[in-house]
């Protein structure tokens, strides 16, 4: 019988109380227990960035966190960005600049980009490239993603 633990955290602005298996990853909890599937499994070992979320404002690979690590934290997923006007502009920039193809890496990219936008609103292309280097994309060749984030940064200026 596996060990369970009760945790409480804020998810996309709403309080949440969940009982989770202690061995469960944060990614699995978001997807399978809470039912928010915008956060993607790409590798399960922190190499691809498809599962990027915000934890107390910082971006994290949710596949490398245990669900119990959410206890007492403020969590934002791609679904939580729906309420954020700055993120609206970012999503629109992704659409407008053709930064989306198969779209599987896109939620993680948008999460990472939103963090760049928040912490470095004047980021130039080189800074943006460094900022998303932990997020793999197999379709776009990254250029249009960088263009999108750069335009959102400039748009905020």
């Amino acid at each position, binding site marked *: 019988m596996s060990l369970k633990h009760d945790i409480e955290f804020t998810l996309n602005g709403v309080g949440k109380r969940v009982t989770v298996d202690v061995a469960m990853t944060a990614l699995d909890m978001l997807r399978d227990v809470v039912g928010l599937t915008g956060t993607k499994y790409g590798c399960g070992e922190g190499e691809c960035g498809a599962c990027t979320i915000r934890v107390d404002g910082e971006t994290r690979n949710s596949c490398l966190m245990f669900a119990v690590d959410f206890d007492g934290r403020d969590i934002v997923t791609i679904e939580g960005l729906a309420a954020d006007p700055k993120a609206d502009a970012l999503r629109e920039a*992704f659409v407008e600049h053709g930064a989306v193809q*198969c*779209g599987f890496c896109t939620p993680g990219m948008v999460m990472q980009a939103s963090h760049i936008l928040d912490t470095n609103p004047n980021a130039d292309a080189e800074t943006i490239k460094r900022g998303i280097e932990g*997020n793999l994309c197999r379709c776009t*060749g990254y250029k249009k993603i960088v263009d999108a984030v750069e335009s959102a940064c400039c748009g905020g200026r």
Partner: protein
Amino acid sequence: MNVAEKPVIAAASLIGQRIQKKDAPEKAAGKTRYIQDMVVPGMLHAKILRSSRVHAKIKSIDTSAAKALPGVHVVLTAADVPDQQPIGVARDHLPLKGERVRSLRDEIAAVAADSDEIAEAALKLIRVEYEDLPVIATPEDAIKPGAPLIHPAPLDAHGRPQSLPPKTPIAFAGKADNIAMRFDYTHGDIAQAEAESDVVVEDSFQLHYVTHCCMGVSGVIAEFDASGNLLMYSNTQVPFLHKREFAEYLNIDPSRVRIIQPPIGGGFGSKLDIYPFEVICIFLARAAKRPVKMVFTREEEFLASPTRQPVLLTLRSGCRKDGTLTFRQVHTLHDNGAYTSWGATTPFVMMQTFSSLYRVPACDYHTTVVYTNNPYAGSFRGYGNLQATFAIEQHMDMLAEKIGMDPLDFRMKNAQDVGEVTGQGMEFKSCGFKECLTTAAERSDYRKKHADNIANRNARGPVKRGIGIASMLHVGGGAKIYPSDGCGTILKLDDFANVTLITGASEIGQGSETVLSQLVCEELGLPISAVTVVNNDTAITPWDVGVHASRTTFIAGNSAIGAARKAKAKILAAAAKKHGCGEAALDLRGGFVVVAETGEPVVELARLMRNLHFSDKAELVMTTFYYEPPSVHQDKAFKGDVSAAYAWAAQVVEVEVDTETGIVKMTKVTGTHDVGRVLNRLGLEGQIEGGVVMGQGYALTENLIVENGVTRNPNFRDYKLVTAPEIPEMDITFVESMDGEGPQGAKGVGEAPAICIAAAAANAIHNATGVRIFGLPFTPEAVYRALRGKSDKPHWPAWKPE
């Protein structure tokens, strides 16, 4: 101004515009539901037990403990599915292996359980006893006399090979040698052409294993209804071919198989074949009488999804002093892996490049595809063309150097042109090849940089700059491989002039639903937002042969245009009748029927639609169209005009080579593509940029390391994809050759951009350092060794089976 002007609607074209991808807003919001995200009520979760030996006989399999684990519903081995049929291009592959494993990925047992965790735990309880067999780790070993057989014939009671009826699949009858396939093609007189050559070069080239690395891992959901009809949620790129194949494996009528494709997290050719996991998932669903979902882990994706195969290639090329190419002779050895998938047929494409990229009077091409105990090869964007181009385009530079000719001039002298019919029977009705060469060269300042870099090779400092050019030819108007290369469209307009476009063409992220909507709207004078695309359900959509051969824009595009033009003719005829004018004088613009000459609105289209609907005759505007390209099947000698159009490109790669570390930095790629015509500029740029960076990975970083049949780096930490800071500056331009058969003049381009990069990089490294490297990838270790003369040049004497 108070004066009322007569409103007119000016003609406006969507062609060449930057059209946003229709599915992008959902994807950017994280709302798109991929197969990984799907939950079907009552579904079970499945896992596969794979071999722990590379090549072995299976002595016994004990699943009793796994079956006893609470939460386990079904455990299957080959013994539980005596009716299983062989899959794959050569029918040499049983999904569940009962007597023998031939590679480390081989499927031995499968579990369906209440959760992934329980299924995983059950796998650990399955005991398999093996008897190891000798491993064939390289294709060279596979063709040695007396080499162990990968698919030996079964023995009868006396220990003699069983005699089975002719046409018994290899999976049951075995194969008396390790040769999976061979391809032999010739045009012209090689001996005479060689005798007429002033210069001849011969080299071997070694191409490595890479894999697709779709960001969405493989997955499938299978369920049967109470009548035994199968519903599959599948990531396939070829739903209609698979519908038929799955029916064959289950021995049921194809009409009882329905395939729904959720949005797909990347394809690149990987989803072109049926794989064991899909068939096994169906077996589990049949046995459990419940929906069963199976999704790979990333490690499993690396181990058990297809690869682009290693190729050993020996090329002999000749030319005259004046720069005229005389002949090419090619022998290749392909590592097929243990089973045959589409990778074995990549020579179809490779030989086109050898025979037809340049004008070459004589060409002799031989490929032998051999079984080994390695992971088996599938199709991958470019389909053999990256490997062929890598060899040819290095030889173009080498020949040019030998005769003292500029490499660009040498290419221009031998480049194909409009009207040419090649030795293989390909007919170039549109061809912007020369313009691609000159444009890419001029924009990159190729000639000057090429000369300057040679002059600067011995300058001080460890970092040397290099520039290299390479060109490519690829099918751009489909490829007639199957009895039909067509696509069907059903189009309907509703009472509000919104269009439902029902197409056989699959969307795998490449943007097909956007470009098809664009082509329809161009005909009907409607905004893109007026179109709903239905493209993912074999029970609804008309037949299509699938996403491959860069065919979708060309084939499905022509099909969509055909349906739209029929709808337009109906609409204009109705409008003309109702408003008493000639239909030739009318057009559709901005949601209105207008007078073509003046743009004066006649009637709002939506209103006309309602009028037709609610009239006495109660007509709805619905049309269908099936487009079959005017291409032909190749004959037995591989000759024939297999595509309705051909795409061309020249790419110039610039590098910085750090001679102290061996690190090659790709600084700039200047690419010019003959795309026929630019349709959606945004989508086209995205395809090209993504392909360039995929080509960069193939050239510099990606390497699936397989040692003695064991994949050593099944993860993103050790299998290095290109990341954002490493991408080159990209200058991409287009040549519009306006293909007469293409939709609005366009040709296919999906595979093209990845094809030249490794070849151009090889030429650039040589330009920088004077050292030519004949094997991929150009990792720091490989380049460092090559620069110091410490790498072994690949060597494979020309060989083909007798």
